[in-house]
């Protein structure tokens, strides 16, 4: 009868021996419309980039794993589904997020200003030990740069954020920023499990309860 969706699971090999921990984390993307949030996710999860990225219908919940030593870190990635546009993101979006990537577009100063507002919003709304990364996206357009690297780096340092300039187009620093976040997340059983969920259960068809644990690195 008990089938709580445990967030920290131990993967089982067919022979039953433990293979290492799987830690699951909720990661949210934030930032102004059109800075490349969905593109970063698409690049990280599927290795793709679309020049004319349509609003990503039907795909605002993706998962991807990265491996660190004996641990598989599984990111449950929440994209905004466009709800950032008219400032209508729901509190549910931040709820229980253990990591966030706040994205701006290096060719647009306004989006950097907005990114700072999102960081403040996270500091106010999200859990206190959330890991926040700042991504200066569209680095491939550095010739049209409006936000200096140093300016962003200084801001990130002052607020103890991870910081990288990225390009969803060329894939520069995309995996790296997720990996850097994974390294900063607590990987002991308790920290990753309990803080993530409110300790309820997920519902599933036929009451299979928790989804099967994902397999480790390919």
């Amino acid at each position, binding site marked *: 009868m008990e089938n709580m969706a445990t967030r920290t699971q131990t993967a089982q090999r067919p022979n039953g021996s433990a293979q290492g921990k799987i830690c699951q984390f909720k990661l949210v993307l934030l930032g102004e419309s059109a800075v490349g949030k969905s593109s970063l996710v698409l690049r990280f999860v599927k290795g793709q980039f679309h020049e004319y990225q349509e609003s990503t219908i039907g795909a605002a*919940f993706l998962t991807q794993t990265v491996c660190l030593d004996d641990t598989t870190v599984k990111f449950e990635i929440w994209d905004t589904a466009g709800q950032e546009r008219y400032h209508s993101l729901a509190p549910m979006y931040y709820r229980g997020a253990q990591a966030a990537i706040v994205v701006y577009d290096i060719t647009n100063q306004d989006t950097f200003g907005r990114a700072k507002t999102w960081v403040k919003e996270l500091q106010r709304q999200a859990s206190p030990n959330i890991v926040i990364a700042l991504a200066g996206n569209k680095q491939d357009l550095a010739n049209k740069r409006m936000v200096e690297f140093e300016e962003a780096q200084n801001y990130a340092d002052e607020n103890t954020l991870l910081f990288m300039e990225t390009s969803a187009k060329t894939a520069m620093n995309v995996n790296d920023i997720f990996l850097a976040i994974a390294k900063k997340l607590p990987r002991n059983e308790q920290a990753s499990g309990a803080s993530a969920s409110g300790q309820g259960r997920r*519902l599933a068809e036929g009451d299979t309860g928790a989804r099967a644990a994902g397999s480790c690195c390919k």
Partner: protein
Amino acid sequence: MDEEYDAIVLGTGLKECILSGMLSVSGKKVLHIDRNKYYGGESASICPLEELFTKFSAPAPDESYGRGRDWNVDLIPKFLMANGQLVKLLIHTGVTRYLEFKSVEGSYVYKGGKISKVPVDQKEALASDLMGMFEKRRFRNFLIYVQDFQSDDPKTWKDFDPNTANMQGLYDKFGLDRNTQDFTGHALALYRDDDYLLQPAIQTITRIKLYSDSLARYGKSPYLYPMYGLGELPQGFARLSAIYGGTYMLDKPIDEIVVGEGGRVVGVRSGTEVAKCKQVYCDPSYVQDKVRKKGQVIRCICLVDHPIPNTKDALSTQIIIPQKQVSRNSDIYVSLVSYTHQVAAKGWFIAMISTTVETENPEVEIKPGLDLLGPIRQKFVSISDYYEPIDSGLESQIFISESYDATSHFETTCLDVLDIFKRGTGEEFDFSKIKHELGDEEQ
């Protein structure tokens, strides 16, 4: 906003958010607006606690209430039936992945001033203090009959036609007394009054089956409650709608629903902006001239720092007070959730008492519920009008939901939603279709 939409949805209460999600999933271009700057309308959970006190013009809470941000207080109390319509909707739309639930620990029924656990299986029936020895046997036989009953297999009906004979007839067939009928109809079949007695028995049998199937799903009780409060539900369906292309605007006043030739809706105006549309879906508060008052519901939010007495310290419970027990025409519902659901600060509980208003003095009506709670630290009473649309919306293409009723669960909520969807689109909502499409969302 100056665009054309298939449908504009006004209000982000649960019903409107489910509708918005279903419409977007069905390929409609949807604009979803709320005049408030938060999601949920009447089905929001209030956070922080200070805001709840302000809302009811009470002096600010003292420090014994812990951090205000740890509270998420529902305005309308309800639970989900584990095997009910809403859970089906959540699972088939994939919205369940945004939410976590807990089973409600205890389900009780009131009899003669005391509460007893609702007996649901043969074993519990035999142990229950609700019935005498012989009555227990009869009730057990009745439960077995319902359990074995198959609507498509007349052999299981045992010489009783449930489609024509009424429920009173079935009770009589098993010789169940008034008291047993009372908790069966109200605590198992979840009827609010006794009209069901003269309806075909099949309806009640189906409801008792829903109760026991729900119970079988997660144990303890047939009810579920979402972590962080019921306000998570509309947010989850809003996200579904957004994922399927729905556009969201909060904090946007609606000044006019613009109607064209033949009384058909053509758009919605906010200030000087007009968004064109073919249809509007909304709650009664957006169309006060198109709804009529059907009655009133009283709801009382009680903040307490202990579980309800005589519930084995359950951290969540539902108690049903059947109408007849307290000489009324409609049941009184008591529900309790706690800090373990992330809706209250550590050590705190939120009890809610609700019922349909029957007298000039509704606060007196809920007294049997209040008396069960033990000491109450803070009490907030609200009496809300209950509205229903004056027409089906087919002519105007303005489809209006009913206000949230006094029932303790979401079954009527879902029936209203599915009915509106059908009126609006001319089709039943196709559950199987979406689920398939969502299949490849996760890689």
